[in-house]
């Protein structure tokens, strides 16, 4: 496959899934003729035909609800919602049906389906196009929530999500779609849903993030290293089920943790991670766990975007303060 960006990796994964499993179908708004608003499904209608790739009416609840029915009947639907801010009309289907049918039927029925949701800000988009409300999905029992930040993980996690016997909400960091490139294998492979990925090993401090904020987190790590700090970077990758052990292992070693996400602070997923870390390794902590997050404000429009998104400076400053402790 050679060097690809995250968007191309996702496109390739969908192509592979459609080619290798006849139960896989794609449905969503504008995913056929135009290849989707982010072109993630580009060319798939031509390659796989109109019985596999469906443009749908503008109806998110309908898309997810219909995909649910298809999944229960034995298909492996992959639904696309254009932006996270448009996913809420489908939230009822997700929380009340998709996440519950296995429990409701005591395993008699299941909904093996993937809901792909581009999320996050930083591209100067209109209102509702920059949301990162992952914690309202991670809070739902019965679904898995996955967020890749590299092309390699994007392909492997998406194929794993499509294979998974349970529903997966698959969040795609919009501003990384074309910002990260890497060589990935041109074969069918999966990346396990669950384990965190230790992206960089270090001894002094653990930076924990996922999705789009991995970019700034990586930059912050490089800066800190240049200052002589040994930094461990964790890409959480799966918000639910959370790899609590993997997080604790790292912080037990470093004794310090900074959690970075672009969603608002209050009720943000960083709170869950911080709580989990202190439950497991409070006595290894050398300093309080710090969160660097978006503010408790509405995600702003283009001109104020940089005032909102956690910048590299904020991460470095928080890390330095933590290291003083």
């Amino acid at each position: 496959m050679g060097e690809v960006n995250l968007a191309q990796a996702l496109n390739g994964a969908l192509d592979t899934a459609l080619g290798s499993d006849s139960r896989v179908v794609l449905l969503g708004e504008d995913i056929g003729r135009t290849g989707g608003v982010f072109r993630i499904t580009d060319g798939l209608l031509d390659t796989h035909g109109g019985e596999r790739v469906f443009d749908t009416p503008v109806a998110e609840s309908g898309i997810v609800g219909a995909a649910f029915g298809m999944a229960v009947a034995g298909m492996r639907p992959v639904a696309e919602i254009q932006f996270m801010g448009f996913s809420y009309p489908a939230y009822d289907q997700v929380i009340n049906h998709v996440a519950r049918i296995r429990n409701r039927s005591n395993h008699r029925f299941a909904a093996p389906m993937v809901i792909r949701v581009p999320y996050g800000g930083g591209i100067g988009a209109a209102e509702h196009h920059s949301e990162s409300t992952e914690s309202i999905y991670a809070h739902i029992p019965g679904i898995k929530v996955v967020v890749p930040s590299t092309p390699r993980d994007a392909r492997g996690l998406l194929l794993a999500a499509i294979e998974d016997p349970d529903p997966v909400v698959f969040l795609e960091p919009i501003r990384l779609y074309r910002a990260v490139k890497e060589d990935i294998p041109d074969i069918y492979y999966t990346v396990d849903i669950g384990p965190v990925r230790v992206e960089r090993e270090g001894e002094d401090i653990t930076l924990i993030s996922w999705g789009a904020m991995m970019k700034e987190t990586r930059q912050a790590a490089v800066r800190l290293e240049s200052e002589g700090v040994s930094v461990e970077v964790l890409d959480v990758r799966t918000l639910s089920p959370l790899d609590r052990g993997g997080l604790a292992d790292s912080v037990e070693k470093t004794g310090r943790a900074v959690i970075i996400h672009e969603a608002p602070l209050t009720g943000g997923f960083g709170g869950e991670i911080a709580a989990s870390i202190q439950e497991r390794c409070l006595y290894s902590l050398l300093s309080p766990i710090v969160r660097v997050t978006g503010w408790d404000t509405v995600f702003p429009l283009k001109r104020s975007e940089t005032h909102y998104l956690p910048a590299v400076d904020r991460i470095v400053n928080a890390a330095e303060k933590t290291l003083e402790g």
Partner: protein
Amino acid sequence: MSSRKPGLGRGLEALIPMASQTTNDAVRETSPDAPKDMFQLIEPDGSVLDRLPVTLEEMRALYADMVEARVFDHKSMAMQRQGRLATYAPFEGQEAAQIGAAAALRPQDWLAATYRDAALNWRAGYPWRLLILGRTGDERGGEVPESVRILPPSITVGGHMIHAVGLAWAEKLKGSDSVALTSFGDGATSEGDFHEAMNFAAVYETPTVFFCQNNGFAISYPVHEQTRSETIAVKAEAYGMPAARVDGNDVAAVLAVVREAVDRARRGEGPSLIEAVTYRLGPHTTSDDPGRYRDEDEGEDWRSKDPLTRIRKLLEKARGWTSEWQEELEKAASAKIEEAVEWAENLAQPEPEDLFDRMFSTPTPSLQEQKKIASDG
């Protein structure tokens, strides 16, 4: 082949080839009280308006099913009052709509119905014992046998209609001849989900039958206040979908109409909407007091249109009913339901671990940890 853009009358005609215009006129002439354009085969007094879609023996079987359903309904109400069932949503008065619709389905067909559809679910293959188990407050009640393609009852209003679109869509893509029927009430047609489901079904021509039991009320809110549409059926026209309006208390008419819609879907001719006009004789649920929103006279009027009574009268005329048979039916139904209740009530209580084990195909590490805490106490 039916017209794709039927008017209300034409929609009826399209779906019911056997119901000639003469029949419709006959309905109006012989039954001035019957709502306009409502397909009917048997009047409340038991007189037959047109050729019936069933033999006498089949009619006796449908009647027996309705009796059994009513015994279940009464038993469930009583059990709820005794604290043995959680909230129960009775269907008394709607037996013809539910038994008639279920009788039109085949085992390979999917069904996605509501909390008020115990009779429909049962007649389509959902065992009484599991319906009862579910109402005692046990998730195992949703575990229908492997051969049964019925989703556990949906408790939220209207969210399940689109499921029948997805189920049918999958069957169409797989090239099977299964169809999906979704049952819902008049109240659900106000949900945005109704629009999305109807539109998706029409757009993708899925083999879905939308079966609306218009029982007059969304809890307390009368149907004529819920919508300015003249009927529920007329809404189908906007989606380019044929529709029929049928006397929901006439089991033969319901069976004929649903059978036609199901056959049509099976032939690959797409979805349709059926409005079965009926009446919920009981409360919305066991926690409801209908005296606050409707008068007793109305109920009495509908009692006179009881779906069981009219078939009994018809069978009596045809020498297909005796009071001894009625007694036998009720006794047999009671025994069956008693047995189901006994099974459900004697089933071992759920273990704390069960909570964790049915969330995913394999419990996640987090759930395993919580499960351990739960069982260690």
